């Protein structure tokens, strides 16, 4: 399908706050994004004009923010609300190979719904991982460097060369990707074997260097993962905040051109144009 026909659902509830940049990232590349409230998909408290169906979209984006005040756990309430009403629609969406992107709070939501890591099947009934409190116990907000470690499965990074280091900012207090303690090593190996690891936090030399390069103490410095098919992708840093070069920290020296985050949106729209 043509990119100009690709409809993108940027899903929000109370407390979502990165929907505008996420929406604009798709808009600027010529797609048809729309900011949609969860109630529009579930059909509660909305007029018939406002009702939407998930099946009418080609891409689903869960943007960053603090949905439902991050109460209970980051992303847990949004995830519970999605699961209560949209489980089946969402499973069909993913099964059809349509791409789902979760940025920051969106990543937390994907993990809480069981759509990631989803090492077997599409969505697990209970979460298989969690994005827990940063080791520093603080909100970590600064540019971070991400190395692409994915070998080609992820639909969102096809236009990023292997091992390229992208400067994409992080801003979160709960970004430590954690697996069950007793099986963590085995799970990471399985994720690697399945080509589900996408980005790792690195230092400028491209090495895994721990804090502060990795802002949260994440297992194996992992910043982003995808499902087995590569059409569901979640990451803690914010590619939509570096769509243009001039929003990078070195903008006074390099003001022109594309920002490092833009390739994520170009990749997924490339996938849509080829596969859907």
């Amino acid at each position: 399908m043509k990119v100009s026909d690709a409809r993108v659902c940027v899903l929000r509830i109370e407390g979502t706050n990165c929907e505008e940049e996420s929406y604009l990232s798709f808009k600027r590349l010529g797609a048809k994004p729309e900011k949609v409230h969860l109630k529009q998909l579930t059909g509660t408290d909305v007029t018939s004009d406002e009702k939407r169906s998930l099946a009418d979209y080609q891409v689903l984006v869960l943007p960053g923010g603090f949905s439902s005040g991050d109460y209970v756990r980051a992303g847990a309430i949004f995830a519970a609300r999605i699961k209560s009403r949209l489980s089946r629609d969402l499973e069909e969406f993913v099964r059809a190979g349509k791409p789902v992107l979760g940025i920051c709070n969106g990543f937390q939501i994907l993990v809480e719904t069981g759509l990631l890591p989803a090492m077997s099947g599409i969505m697990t009934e209970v979460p298989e991982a969690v994005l827990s409190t940063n080791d520093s116990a603080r909100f970590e907000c600064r540019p971070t460097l991400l190395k692409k470690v994915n070998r080609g499965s992820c639909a969102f990074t096809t236009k990023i060369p292997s091992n390229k280091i992208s400067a994409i900012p992080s801003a979160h207090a709960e970004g430590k990707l954690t697996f069950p303690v007793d099986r963590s090593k085995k799970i990471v190996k399985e994720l690697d074997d399945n080509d589900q690891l996408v980005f790792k936090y690195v230092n400028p030399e491209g090495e895994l260097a721990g804090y502060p390069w990795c802002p949260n103490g994440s297992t194996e410095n992992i910043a982003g993962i995808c499902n087995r098919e590569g059409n569901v992708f979640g990451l803690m840093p914010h590619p939509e905040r570096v769509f243009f070069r001039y929003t990078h920290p070195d903008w006074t020296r390099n003001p022109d051109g594309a920002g490092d985050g833009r390739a994520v949106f170009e990749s997924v729209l490339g996938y849509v144009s080829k596969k859907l």
Partner: protein
Amino acid sequence: MQSQVTIKMAVAEVRVTLKKGVADPEGKNTLKALELLGFEGVRDVRSVKVFEIETEGEAGETKRSVEEMCRKLLANPVIHNYSIRIK
């Protein structure tokens, strides 16, 4: 005159704790702050989340539905243990 209607009610207390071996930065930070304040002999601090849930119905029924609440929302089994006490 108000008629007296008795509705059976139960209060469940849910304690969500971190599993052994899971990092607890909030607990550790609190421990450090207590030490800085001069408290001696504090061996460890663990953060715990408590929910009080009022429900209609019998205690047994409540216990079952609160179990389900823990599974579906209140706890993430990757890092949490939970216990339920009906008050």
